[in-house]
């Protein structure tokens, strides 16, 4: 699936919910499906800066596609990073770099996009794209 297809799939899933409670409950459940980062990578240099909770992200590339694993000590943050990883994992670095992230707004999580928001969703997106940029340079 392409990034846009996955994003549309997530928008569809979230459209089934009537209120914030169900949306957040679903996000919390998605957090439980997060591909967990190997314990050895839970180090200072894998922490995403700008988050009130701790978020660790690791990336590797196989067959020209980037895969992400992550973890967080906060459940909602874990749900958010799980959604992002579902969108960006197993994709070509160029597609990750070029992807827009408007779908966050469409699934009712707009409040998390504020740059002042302490959960650092913006920092997470930036970090995932940074990994993609790094791998793209290897392919060039």
């Amino acid at each position: 699936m392409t990034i846009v297809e996955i994003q549309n799939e997530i928008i569809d899933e979230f459209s089934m919910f009537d209120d914030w409670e169900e949306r957040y409950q679903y996000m919390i459940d998605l957090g439980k499906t997060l591909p967990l980062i190997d314990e050895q990578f839970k180090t200072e240099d894998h922490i995403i800066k700008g988050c009130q909770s701790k978020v660790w992200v690791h990336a590797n590339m196989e067959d020209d596609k980037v895969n992400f694993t992550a973890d967080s000590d906060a459940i909602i943050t874990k749900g958010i990073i799980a959604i992002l990883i579902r969108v960006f994992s197993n994709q070509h670095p160029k597609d990750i770099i070029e992807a827009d992230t408007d779908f966050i707004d469409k699934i009712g999580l707009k409040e998390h996009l504020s740059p002042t928001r302490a959960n650092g969703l913006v920092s997470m997106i930036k970090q995932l794209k940074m990994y993609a940029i790094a791998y793209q340079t290897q392919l060039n």
Partner: protein
Amino acid sequence: MSKTLDHTTFNVETIRKDFPILNREVNGKPLIYFDNAATSQTPQQVIDVIVDYYSNYNANIHRGVHALSQEATDAYEQARRKIQTHFNAEYAHEIIFTSGTTHGINLVANGFSSLLKKGDEIIVSALEHHSNIVPWQMLCEKTGAELKVIPMNDNGELELSAFEALLNENTKLVFVNHISNALGTINPIEEIISKAHSVGAAVLVDGAQSCPHIKPDVQALDVDFYVCSAHKICGPTGVGMLYGKQDWLKKLPPYQGGGEMIAEVTFEKTTYADLPHKFEAGTPNVCGGIAFGAALDYMNAIGFETIANYEHELLEHATHLLQQIEGVKIYGTAKHKTSVISFNVGNIHPYDIGTILDKMGIAVRTGHHCAQPIMDYYNIPGTIRASFMFYNTKAEIDTFIAALKKAIMMLS
């Protein structure tokens, strides 16, 4: 402090009508504002003063000959006298207008940089806000003085015996907050001041968290410097005050150069203006200063004893209900504390609970509250902090408890 409240004279519903912001909704729910330790809300009486200033007599002060400037100057200086009376300072010129607590602390720290030398010692408490640690670290780097820390115990109380052991003839300054922002602990500053004075050290007290709840008497305390911010006392942001004993303020060099703070300028030499202008370079926050005075009028009309008694009722009500929730751990259980509760629930991250509470219209603070050393002491990433003011109600606390239970259910 007496702990009984006369409910015939204090009516919270009448008080709430003074605060327009309390009528708004957040995420479709009536706002419940429990982040008062970060900033308090502003009553209409203070908002009116701000509107009146800009509508009728906005002008630069102290040097205009025209009517507006005279009116603005009079109102600003009257506000200074209100603050003097409120804190019971001996002279009005011992009250320096600042941009807030942090500015006041930096002003004193900067002033001491010319008075300290290598081998001198500065003592701060383990309960400090970042803003009260960083300036002293910078001061120590600059002067070669050494920074010592008064440790705290599990209840969040300072260890006074350890403080006494730190004091010696090299101690030049002691900095402590009157009330901890993260835990609400009321520190025994009377004892700290008298002990510090016994070795000749000066004491600066950070009153940012105390001034909304108690009325400090700087002469009775015999404190050398006392600082606070107006925005935590129902006033506007960007203004605060530094009280300093006249002798100390005369000894300290000015903090910033500029207009207003000079007596005479030639290219050879500038002589500084008298107190308080020596420390008030540039055009001040005139409106803010006047509104600060109005905020004190508002609080004094209710009465600080009434405020403290009512807030104590809120604290006891919330503490009692919180303790009944499984897994809740309250940090800072000092015998003397204000209406601040810092807590966690089991292993749930404070950020998660804060996010869910916000969805239900409830504003609390989560995180380390700019007091990382305290969080390190307890080995936690942060806490949820609910802080109450006299315009909050027990009914709001009940709604908060119900919302918290729902958040716990969602997050477990």
